[in-house]
């Protein structure tokens, strides 16, 4: 096979920073970027450049599918806020290092992929594999999420990632989940339809408001009781959700929540070691 025609689509058409000045307006610590004609790399190069030069709030307008927004910003602990208008592309906030991203619109697949810390707030829905391999920070999605939300989310000691979903999730919620917390609020939803919840799950907890039947759970998980700590946790996170999206916290917390927990910390041990 000839390789003559192969092009790296991520690098093609990428212009150097110095040619992108017309897309940015800076006022004090606020930088506004018009992303309409920018490629993925150009948007992210510009954000990084603005932060290095002192911007602490970035407003992105006309975003249409540019990927990895918020990545490559681990800069000596500097924290920024990124406000997005439009549809950010896949892997929004991948590896996010302590920043805050607010999206006014829907998000696509892979929100918060391997996110380290910080916060992502989506005023809309999100696609598949939200919070994949997330290891810290918080994600709030106002509406629904697609397949495999929180796949292999993990937690360790003080690191405890949180994903809060306003409406409902599709199949394989919490697949191979190893830690962290997922809250599904079921707002305006008659019945959660997700199947195979917690397939291969071996850590963390999922809290679902509204009815879930036994058959919707994978064989590696079971229903658990909520303890005092859990209710305290829910009160705090649901409170935050309601603050962001303007809903009634007491009404949501008044209803019954179901906890879904793993049966074992090591469901596949016997597969490899013959235990």
């Amino acid at each position, binding site marked *: *096979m000839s*390789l*003559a*025609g*192969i*092009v*790296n*689509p*991520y*690098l*093609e058409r990428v212009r150097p920073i110095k040619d992108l000045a017309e897309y940015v307006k800076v006022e004090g610590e606020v930088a506004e970027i018009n992303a309409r004609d920018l*490629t*993925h790399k150009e948007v992210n190069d510009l954000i990084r450049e603005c932060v290095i030069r002192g911007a602490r709030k970035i407003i992105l307008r006309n975003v*249409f*599918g540019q*990927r990895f927004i918020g990545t490559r910003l681990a800069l000596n602990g500097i924290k920024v806020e990124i406000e997005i208008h*439009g*549809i950010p*592309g*896949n892997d929004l906030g991948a590896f996010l290092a302590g920043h805050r991203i607010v999206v006014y*619109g*829907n998000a*696509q*697949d892979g929100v918060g992929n391997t996110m380290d810390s910080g916060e992502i707030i989506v005023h809309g829905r999100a*696609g*598949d594999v939200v919070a994949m391999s997330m290891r810290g920070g918080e994600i709030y999605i106002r509406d629904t999420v*697609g*397949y495999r939300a929180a796949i292999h989310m993990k937690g360790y000691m003080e690191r405890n990632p949180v994903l809060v979903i306003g409406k409902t999730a*599709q*199949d*394989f919620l919490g697949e191979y989940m190893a830690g962290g917390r997922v809250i599904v609020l079921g707002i305006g939803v008659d019945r959660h*339809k997700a*199947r195979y919840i917690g397939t291969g799950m071996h850590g963390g907890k999922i809290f679902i408001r509204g009815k879930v039947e036994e*058959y919707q759970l994978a064989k590696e998980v079971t229903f658990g009781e909520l303890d005092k700590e859990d209710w305290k946790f829910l009160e705090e996170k649901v409170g935050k959700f309601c603050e962001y999206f303007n809903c009634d916290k007491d009404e949501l917390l008044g209803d019954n929540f179901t906890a879904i927990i793993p049966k074992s910390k090591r469901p596949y041990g016997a597969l490899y070691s013959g235990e």
Partner: protein
Amino acid sequence: MRFNDDKDFSACGIFGIMDRAGRRFSGKLIVEAMSLMKVRGNGLGAGFAVYGLYKKFKDYYALHVMLDNKDVKEKVYNYISQNFDIVYEDEIPVNDKANVVDPPKFVRYFVAPRKRGTEKSLSDDDYVIKKVMYVNRHIDGAYIISSGKNMGVFKGVGFPEDIADFFMIEEYRGYIWTAHTRFPTNTPGWWGGAHPFSILDWTVVHNGEISSYGTNKRYLEMFGYYSTLKTDTEVMAYIFDLLMRRQGLPIEVVAKILAPPMWEEIERMPEKERNFYKALRMVYSPLLVNGPWAVIVARHGEMFGLTDRIRLRPLTAAEKGSLFMISSEEAPIRYLFPKVDKVYTPYGGEPIVARLER
């Protein structure tokens, strides 16, 4: 950096747009949509299907022939003229200045079947399939890549913008458009292997891979469909023709053959339903399409989207007035129309269907 190692970032991008009121529009819209998904492809394949473009010859089969080998044109012409009445023929107009490497030649024939002897018992459609299969299998270097009426497939090696530029896609008008950008992972990136794949007026664009290709292909051979284009997606076009045109099944049932519910789900169904789904799985088990896939399928009057049963590839649908869109990502939909009436993503194995309003 070039992707010449074993690690690939499989993606592919697909997009379909239909005006359910039947109004025709230029290919400009879909080219714009595809350019928003540039990173889903790597320049090794792109293509377009358009419905309603050959109004003048709408009653004739439009055969788009790709000639990989320049000396084969006469052979193809002889075969076609022996088996069909040719009412019009031309070279498919292309832009020589487009950014593509070593394009093959494309010719098209508008034809009516000329059936003889025992072939008179075949329907026109079955006759055309038989002849298309003959050319693709036995005339070396010639492939009929499109064979429906009043529709056509234009495809090749390049990014969607380049292929659109090469075939001057913006000059054509149709009421359904589907498009593909390719990121080939395990089959060659050649002109015949670009999507859409087509037979009669069926077209399929696909993101993913079909692990059951071997089983599907062998089953289809029993019904006279032969895969010659070295890409798994080809079987999909033949499956839809077999199940929907020849066997008359609706898409709602066909979806449950390609992407059937799991056995444990079937066990939970009420008895009547359970028996139906069991029968489907048993009768059509060689047509279960395994692996990660999302497709947009079209024929005259309808366009639908479908994914594998556990949705290992993304697909989003949107409606705006009479327009219906299906896409790998939401961004291109919003780029074309910032405000839509409805945007949604169904569960794996549930078809998204758009039909012409009568």
